[in-house]
């Protein structure tokens, strides 16, 4: 099961610091999270980038990950 870790800002919505999910791709992840944590809406999550095992994926729509992945949602990095 992949582990999703929430930063302090998301923890407020999620109500927990982390949880394990059955999902193995981004779309399944969104569905699972918004179902299990109703406060964590699509609106909160979709503007964010997904970090998969330390790799920042700015557009994660098609991203897959392994069953033992560690996942984080972070703000998208702006350009300079």
């Amino acid at each position: 099961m992949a582990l999703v870790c929430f930063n302090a800002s998301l923890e407020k919505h999620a109500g927990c610091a982390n949880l394990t999910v059955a999902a193995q791709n981004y779309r399944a992840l969104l569905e699972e999270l918004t179902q299990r944590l109703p406060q964590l809406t699509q609106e909160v999550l979709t503007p964010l980038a997904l970090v998969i095992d330390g790799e920042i994926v700015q557009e994660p729509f098609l991203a897959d990950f392994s069953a033992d992945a560690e996942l984080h949602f972070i703000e998208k990095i702006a350009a300079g």
Partner: protein
Amino acid sequence: MSEAREFKHIGQRTIRPDGFDKVTGKANYGADLSLPGMIWGAILRSPHAHANIKKLDVSRAQASPDVLAIATFEDFPSVNAAAQRNGSQRKDLMDTACNIFANQKVLYHGHAVAAIAARSQAAAIAALDLIDVEYEVLTPVLNINDAISADAPILHETMMTQGLAEPATEASNVSARMELKKGDIEAGFAAADVIVERAYDTPTVHQGYIEPHATTVVFNDNGPSMIWCPTQGHFDVRARVAQLMNLELGQIKVVASEIGGGFGGKTTVYLEPVALILSKKSGRPVKMEMSRGDVFRASGPASASQSRIKIGAKMDGTITAMQATLHYEAGAFQGSPMGPGCMTVFTPYDVENLYVEGFDVVVNKPKVAAYRAPGAPQSEFAAEMAVNELAKKIGMDPIEFRLKNAAKEGTQTIYGPKLKVVGLVACLEAAKSSPHYNAPIPENVGRGLAAGFWFNIGGQSSVIINLNPDGTGTIIEGSPDIGGSRASMQMMAAEILGVAPSSLNPIVADTEHVAYNQTTGGSRTTFATGMAVVEAAEDIVEQLKARAAAMWNVTAEQVDFTDGVAHNLSGEDQLTLAEICASAEKTGGQISGRANINARGAGPSFAVHICDIKVDKETGKTDVVRYTAIQDAGKAIHPSYVEGQFQGGAVQGIGWALNEEYVYSKDGIMENAGFLDYRIPLASDLPEIEAIIVEVPNSFHPFGVRGVGETGIIPPLAAVGTAVAEAIGQPISSLPCSPPKILKLLMAAH
């Protein structure tokens, strides 16, 4: 990724393909295009920092025979409709529209109110007098303290602070709060032997690109309209203008001219939509240019900031806790780089207990834009100053102190992920053995050192490589070349194809000739567009093999392609790339390769800078006497341009630390909107900038590249600040370290 790989072209110092045109004056920049029948646009700007527009009357202008078109906010009738379609970007689009033209309220000195087109630039400027505006002047909010005070005038009646523990109930000038944490901050401080706690502030500064914003536009009802402009992202200009004007993307073609510097400041639109409205109304091509004053007053500067930093460590040098409260000015509309500021502030350190809180604050100043590593210089300045002070307190060398706590592979960052392989330790070691750090510190000189971290990004890039029948070719990319990236693209393609770099001509195509490319920024171009170039070249190699196989009547698997030559593995035959191209018509037509990618795996770049500064105790004048910039490039494709990024970033940071700042009157009028009074560094202000390239490869890139463009501006602020503090024997907490401020500190000490 093998580190010992031998390259033929990569790592060489080739002559850039666009160089000839640039040294001879042939290269065309934003203001260099004129068209037959072209007229000129000019903008009326607010003389006030904060005011309601009681009346905006253009009737006198309308009646003048000199005036060919007028534009105001009313000409964005579709903004709301377009915004609906764009869902979550609604607010953002509305803000962009209200920044381009004030909507009932002006929010900063220089805010655009209306525009006029006339036959000459002088006539357009003169006609602005025919527009009558009545203002009801409001008290301006000019800094963070004023903005967050209980009785502050509110800039936006509908703005509620996002991210508070309890949902906000009242309008505020604070648009958002962000909180990041790791470990137990209280326990961390309890375990500390020594604690440093200080407040720091940095001023509003400008990117200071030498080329002002400019554009030439032709509206076309029966085909795509054309926008010519200097931008870091012409595809995003197209998208923005399309949204604002309610047009389809295919109805606009944006041509990226050569760009005279951007540094993040040319990532949005100011003049382009206005010129398009004027062109539509007048039926003529329209050209617009910002004056230097307009650039300062009305294009995006970088956020002013206030930071409070608290750091605790044990006597053995182990940092036990780091805490920051960061405030960023966003300018007139929300959206400062507070987020990345919070995420980067402590990333150079592997520390168990961290707590960061950030606030995005609106004030009556121009809306900020990105500036090299947006958000990071401000917060990391504060953190690095405090780290240096703490090192001194416990009697440790600043490099040793950092090495003891340095972030490395596996370090858990405060924003979430664990770091992959990074080069901070390598940079610190390089600093330790550098000639500069080992040189004695001269008399009356202070030395400072600081580190910096920036993520770097990947993102979307599209590239086409077309080969000609004689084996030469064209690399068609869509990333505006802001500092020599065309040279890198040429070298990377040449490396894969085994040809001379000069046989491949790289061009930055307009929005019609190549698919979408994300804006040049975030240090992404050599990384992501480079990756697309490599993929497109590899696509070609596969085709070359197939074509050679067809000539020899073997299968493609029986063909090897190395150094530009195909070899028949089941015979003696050889064909060069040029020979295969020459016979392409027989083997299925001409050859081109293509790649459309959304690059992942950008590798962070760390830097360490060392600075020596001499202070004249009589006048407070500072002199940078020696400077060294050390940074991890992953792999330097073209070392000269990598060094150039280090040096340019360092000098912008030096300017930020020593001289640059927006000066406002109490009414919010910017008083130094020119290069005479807003003083960027001159050749005579500086010594040589020694650049040391560290290469810790990024395993996600075919050649190991990490972006290098941004990190270099981060360390100078604290390296300079610390050097000045050492030179005068007083703590520095406020930038810039301008002579009057230093004199004051010196006097206070006596």
